[in-house]
C-alpha cells in the first residue's frame, strides 16, 4: 500500500478507528480504576485523579469508557460478522441458484424488512431474556436482511457477466463459480458494506442500550453509559455527552475508511487511468 496516496480523511479515519480498537482489546490492562468501582463523588468534574470526571454513581468515567469501548466494539463486531456471514452466503446462493430458492428467500427477507428494525427489535426483546447472546442474535438476524439484499444484488450483476456463463459452459461446479468467479469481483462493495454494517450495529446497540434493552447493568456499553448519565444534562453536567461523542467519533471514522475503500475504483490490476 502506497502511504502517500491515502487521502487525509481516510488517514484520520484509520487512526481514530485504530485508537478505539486498541482500547477495546487492551481494556483490562489500561483502565486506571475498576470499571465498577466507586472511587469518588457523584459527577465530579475532570481532574488529575479522574481525567474525564466521574459518573452518576461516582465511578471513574474514563475507566467506564474504556470498558465500554470493549463491550461496544466486541458486540458490534460479533453481530456484524454473524449478520454478514449469514446475509452474504444466503444472498450469493440466491443469486447463483435462482429459481424457487431465490424467490422464497427474497420474499422472506422482504417480509422481515417491512417492519422497521428498531421496532421489531423492541417487540422481540420485550419477551426474550436479556442475555448477551439473545441481543447479538436479534441484532444479527435483523441486520442480515440488508446484507442479503446487497450481496444478492452484487452477485446478480456479476452472475450475468459472460465470464460466469463461460465458466458454467466449461463445466465448473457451483463452488468454483461462487468462490473463484463471483467473490473476488464482489469484494470491494462487500468490504465497504461491512464497514457500514459495523457502524449501524454500533448505533443500533447504543440505541437499544439507551432505551434500556441492550446491555444490562452493571455492565454498560457506551449507549448504556449515556443512559446512566443523561439525567445530569439538565443540571449542566456534560457527562452523558462523552460516550455519545465517542460513538459518533467511531461511526465517523469507520465511515471515512469505508468511503475510501469504495472510491478506490482501480480494482482492475494495472487498469488504465
Amino acid at each position: 500500500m502506497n502511504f502517500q496516496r491515502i487521502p487525509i480523511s481516510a488517514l484520520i479515519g484509520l487512526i481514530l478507528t485504530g485508537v478505539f480498537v486498541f482500547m477495546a482489546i487492551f481494556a483490562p490492562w489500561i483502565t486506571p480504576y475498576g470499571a465498577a468501582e466507586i472511587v469518588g463523588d457523584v459527577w465530579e468534574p475532570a481532574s488529575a485523579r479522574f481525567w474525564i470526571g466521574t459518573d452518576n454513581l461516582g465511578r471513574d468515567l474514563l475507566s467506564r469508557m474504556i470498558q465500554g469501548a470493549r463491550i461496544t466494539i466486541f458486540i458490534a463486531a460479533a453481530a456484524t460478522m454473524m449478520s454478514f456471514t449469514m446475509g452474504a452466503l444466503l444472498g450469493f446462493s440466491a443469486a447463483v441458484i435462482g429459481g424457487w430458492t431465490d424467490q422464497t428467500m427474497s420474499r422472506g427477507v422482504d417480509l422481515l424488512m417491512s417492519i422497521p428494525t428498531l421496532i421489531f427489535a423492541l417487540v422481540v426483546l420485550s419477551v426474550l431474556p436479556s442475555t448477551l447472546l439473545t441481543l447479538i442474535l436479534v441484532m444479527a438476524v435483523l441486520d442480515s436482511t440488508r446484507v442479503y439484499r446487497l450481496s444478492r444484488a452484487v452477485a446478480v450483476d456479476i452472475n450475468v457477466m459472460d465470464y460466469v456463463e463461460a465458466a458454467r459452459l466449461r463445466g465448473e461446479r457451483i463452488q468454483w463459480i461462487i468462490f473463484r468467479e463471483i467473490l473476488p469481483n464482489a469484494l470491494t462493495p462487500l468490504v465497504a458494506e461491512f464497514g457500514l454494517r459495523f457502524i449501524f450495529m454500533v448505533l443500533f446497540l447504543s440505541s437499544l442500550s439507551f432505551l434500556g434493552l441492550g446491555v444490562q447493568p452493571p455492565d454498560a456499553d457506551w449507549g448504556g453509559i449515556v443512559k446512566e448519565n443523561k439525567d445530569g444534562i439538565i443540571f449542566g453536567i456534560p457527562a452523558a455527552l462523552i460516550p455519545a461523542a465517542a460513538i459518533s467519533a467511531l461511526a465517523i471514522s469507520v465511515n471515512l475508511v469505508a468511503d475510501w475503500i469504495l472510491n478506490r475504483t482501480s480494482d482492475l490490476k494495472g487498469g488504465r487511468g
Partner: protein
Amino acid sequence: MSDPLVDIKNLKIEATVIPPDGKPFDLTIVHDVSLTLAPGQVMGLIGESGAGKSTVGLSAMCYGRGGLRLSGQVFVNGRDILKSKDADLRKLRGKEVTYVSQSAAASFNPAIKLMDQVVEATVLHGISSRSDAEQRAIGLFRSLGLPDPENIGNRFPHQVSGGQLQRVMTAMALCPKPDLIVFDEPTTALDVTTQIDVLAAIKNAIHETGVAALYITHDLAVVAQVSDEILVLRHGKMIEHGSVKQIIEAPKEDYTKALVSVHIIKHEEKVPSEHPVLKVDNITASYGGSVEVLSDVSVEIHPGQTLAVVGESGSGKSTLARVITGLLPPSKGNITFNDAELPKSLPERSIDELRELQMIYQMADVAMNPRQTVGTIIGRPLTLYFNIRGEKKRKRIVELLDQIEMGETYIDRYPAELSGGQKQRVCIARCLAAKPKLIICDEVTSALDPLVADGILKLLLDLQKVEDVAYLFITHDLATVKAIADSIAVMYQGRVARYGPKSQVLAPPFDDYTDLLLSSVPELKLGWLESVIAHRKMESAGN
C-alpha cells in the same frame, strides 16, 4: 470562391485524466485537425472508434463532452466560435448548427411529446412562430417518410420505433433551417435493413434543403453514399482528405488503402465431408413456453469447416447458440454431436462433451474474469480437462500464446491491460486449450474496429487449418460471411430462411428476405444507394 461556412484551423482537443490512484495528466485526443466546408457541402468524417471524429464534429458547436478543452480556431459563418461568449454560443447552437446523435432513443426526453421537442429550438431562437414551426415539422416528417406525419408529433418517444425516432431527430435538426448539421453515426445503431431507409431519407433531406453537413461514421461504404468529400482520421490525426471518388478509387495513404480493402480475404469454399460434427434437427425453442424463438431449425456443421449463421437482431441466431450449448433446452428436436445424441440441458452433459464444444463471446471485456491473469485464464481448461499442472502447464500456455500471435510476456498481464483485439485473442486461446471439435463464435468481431476484426478473422482461419476445428460463426455482417464461410444459414424470425453451401446461398434466385438482406448491405460504390432505392419502394409503413 465564396467564404467557407466552416473553417477549422489547427484544432487541438485535450483532456485531463485523473486516475484514481495517481497524479492527473493531460491527454491529447485530437492533434492539429484542419478542414473547410462550403455551404451546402457534405463532408464525411471517417475513422475507427477513438479516432476523434465525434469530438471534431462537436467542435463545430464549440462543445466538448466531459470537460474536453478545445484550442485552435473554429470559424463558423466567419466568427471564431472558440472565442465566443456563452450567450453567443447559445445563439449558435440549435440555430446555425444542429446535431443528430447516434442514439435517438436516449436523446429524446421521455416525458415530453415529440412535437414539443422537435420545434423547441426553432421557437426558442425566434425563427418562426409555434404554428409555423409545427407545419414545417409535419412537412419534414412527410418528406422523411414517417408514417402518419400529421399525428406522430403527439406521441412520446417510447411509443415510436428506433428507425422512426432517428428520422424524427433528423427532422428536429432540420426544423430551424440551420446552415450546418452534424450527423454523429446516425445509422450505426440500426439494423441493416432499416439503415437503408434512414440513409436515403437523410440524403434526400440534405439535397432538398441545401444544408451543409458533417457526416460522422466508421463505415466507409455508408459515408460514400452521402458525402461529397471525405476526411480520414486516425488517433486524432488527419490521414487523408479528398473527394469521395478519389478516396474510394485511388486512396493515397496506406491506412486509407487498408480501410478500403477490408474484408477481401480469400477463402476457398470446402466440400462437406461424410459425417457432420454437429447436426441440429428440427429444433424448436421458446423462453417461458409462450412465444417460439426458434421454429423447426435444422443445420449441419462439418469437421474443420465454418457454418455462418447470419440474421438481424431478433432472428434467433444467438438463441440457436444457447440451445446448442445447453443453456436453453429445446422443446422439440434434437442435437447430435460427434455421432452421439447430445443431452439437451447443460447439467446433463459429460465433461468431455463440454470440452469439445467451446464458445467465444462478442464482448471480450466481460468474457474474462478481470481478476485473473492471462495465464490463469488460458491455463484453467488445461487443469480442468487434462489435469496438466506445473511446468508442463506453463509450457503449454506459452505454446498457446504463440499460436495467437502474442508472446510469453503476456502470461502475468490482466485483461484490463490488453487492447480489444488482444482480449479476443486470449479468449480464442482459452478455447483452443480445450482442444475442441467445434467453437461457437458469437459475433466475435462485431465489437472490434474493422482492421482489428480483420486480423482476428485471419487468425481464426489459420487456426482452423492447423487444429481442424469447426466453427459456428454467428454474425449480422454479410461481408464477414462472404469472407470466411463454407456454408451459410440465413435466419429470420426464428426460422431458417435459406441454407446451403456458400456459393449456392449467395447466388440468385433469392427468397424475399435474403434478397432484402443482401441488397441492404452498403457497398463501396458511388451511386449504390440510389440504385437500391430505385429497386425498392420506400414504404412509409416500414421502420
